[in-house]
């Protein structure tokens, strides 16, 4: 089956999106997820800033819009989509809070995934006096694009403060779903959120 479905967040999203629904994928890369969703009857649009990825998405027949997410989602109407997806990009954004609120403006629900900084190995790295470097956070402190890392507990707090409802929270490690101690055992968090 599609290699893309090996990504646990994509597998979840594919299960959540129903045929006929409209999906906006922010940072859509080469459009693989949207292509997969389209094959399953959903209608998709993507936003991407990188030239090579825009080209790849066009070659995949995907509705890609070249635009900078840091500028928000001006041009997208309120409530235009059933799902708005931001996959493992939140932690690399400057306007972190703005983009989440923008997602909930244009979408009925948002799917946000990010590497959980509270993962036990990351905590261990810090205890040992170093910034975490792992498969999930494969950067050194001086070259990382990740400027807004957070833990599952932090994101929960953020949602409470901004009156955002968490419809589902799924946490994974090494491709397997974690059912207890999310903030400690999960390296990847996937949230399904709506406006309160």
């Amino acid at each position, binding site marked *: 089956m599609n290699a893309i479905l090996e990504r646990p967040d994509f597998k979840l999203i594919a299960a959540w999106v129903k045929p006929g629904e*409209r999906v906006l994928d922010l940072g859509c890369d080469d459009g693989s997820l949207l292509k997969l969703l389209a094959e399953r009857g959903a*209608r998709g*649009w993507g936003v991407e800033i990188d*030239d090579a990825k*825009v*080209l790849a*998405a*066009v*070659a995949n*027949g*995907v*509705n*890609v*819009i*070249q*635009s900078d997410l840091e500028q928000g989602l001006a*041009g*997208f*109407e309120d409530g*235009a989509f059933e799902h708005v997806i931001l996959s493992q990009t939140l932690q690399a954004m400057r306007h972190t809070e703005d983009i989440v609120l923008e997602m909930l403006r244009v979408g009925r629900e948002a799917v946000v995934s990010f590497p959980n900084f509270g993962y036990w190995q990351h905590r261990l790295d810090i205890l040992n006096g170093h910034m975490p470097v792992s498969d999930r956070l494969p950067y050194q402190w001086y070259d990382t694009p990740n400027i807004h890392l957070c833990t599952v507990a932090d994101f929960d707090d953020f949602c409470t403060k901004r009156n955002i409802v968490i419809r589902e929270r799924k946490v994974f490690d090494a491709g397997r779903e974690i059912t207890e101690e999310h903030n400690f055992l999960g390296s990847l968090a996937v949230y399904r959120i709506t406006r309160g």
Partner: protein
Amino acid sequence: MTRTNHSVGQVSPQRAHFDTPIKLRSGAVLPAYELVYETYGRLNAAKSNAILVCHALSGHHHVAGHYAGDPDSLGWWDNIVGPGRPLDTEKFFVVGVNNLGGCHGSTGPSSPNPATGKPWGADFPMVAVVDWVHTQARLADLLGIDSWAAVIGGSLGGMQALRWAVTYPQRVRNAIVIASSPRLSAENIAFNEVARQAILTDPDFHGGHYYEHNVKPVRGLRLARMLGHITYLSGDQMAERFGRKLRNDSLSFGYDVEFEVESYLRYQGDKFASYFDANTYLLMTKALDYFDPARERAGDLAATLALAKARFLVVSFTTDWRFSPARSREIVNALLKNGQDVAYANVDYPAGHDSFLMDDPHYHALVKAYLGRVTL
């Protein structure tokens, strides 16, 4: 094996005559007219592989290839049409047409007015973008093309692609709108007006009937082109290309050509004025100004574009200030509002509005990738 891409080679224009009168947007009726056109590649048996290339202000039907015995007579968009090129003539049948009102062989102000036997001149009716689309549709009928695989154009050509998608939704499967706009801004109309005034106030204009006086309003047309040309380039590109470079080493303290940019503009103006018809230039700028398909829907562009059934590729260029990326985004946003299929790229290229004519590899790869997905 690497596939080479090359020009379509030697081509020749064709001529189509239309006897059915056409009522123009202005209300005027043109009883008959001719269009010159060229085609590249082969129309397939299903007649499903045709692409219409719409030209901009100074363009024409000679899009690609060269004429017999004249290897320098390359078409104006030769770099994008040919085997292995984005408009791949091994897959597509590409059609270029000189628009009604043009001065390259199609019926226009310099053609004889059947009522007088003299050139139409200023009496040639004003032609709008929608009129071009209707006449192009008649050419499509003649060629047996029910629906275009794609209609593509840059600038004023992109406006025709938009118009096609809205006016003949069943006949356009893809619209490729490059460096274009859903309507001109006041600033754009202002530039056009200055260009027109340059022509209209030339003593050799004679109210548009200069043909009978055996003169041409060359000075006005030259000024119009010089002005236009400035707006087609980017400031950065001009700075890089010309800077403050002088033709000679020292200042001459006179009004002859001193700076390189002056020399360039004068050359471009002279060249253009030597072959282009001033009445056609006037008419084309008015077609640009009048273009506003959303006008029929109280200015609601989304409601207008909702009529289209085509998929869209919209391309803008970062340095284009005459038709800025923001204008392309207006088109994109309207399509998004309707939930229509659209891909949009804002290509980083330094050549301003003229970027759409350049063979930037990324830009061409986008068009090629998009057309590569088009099913016949």
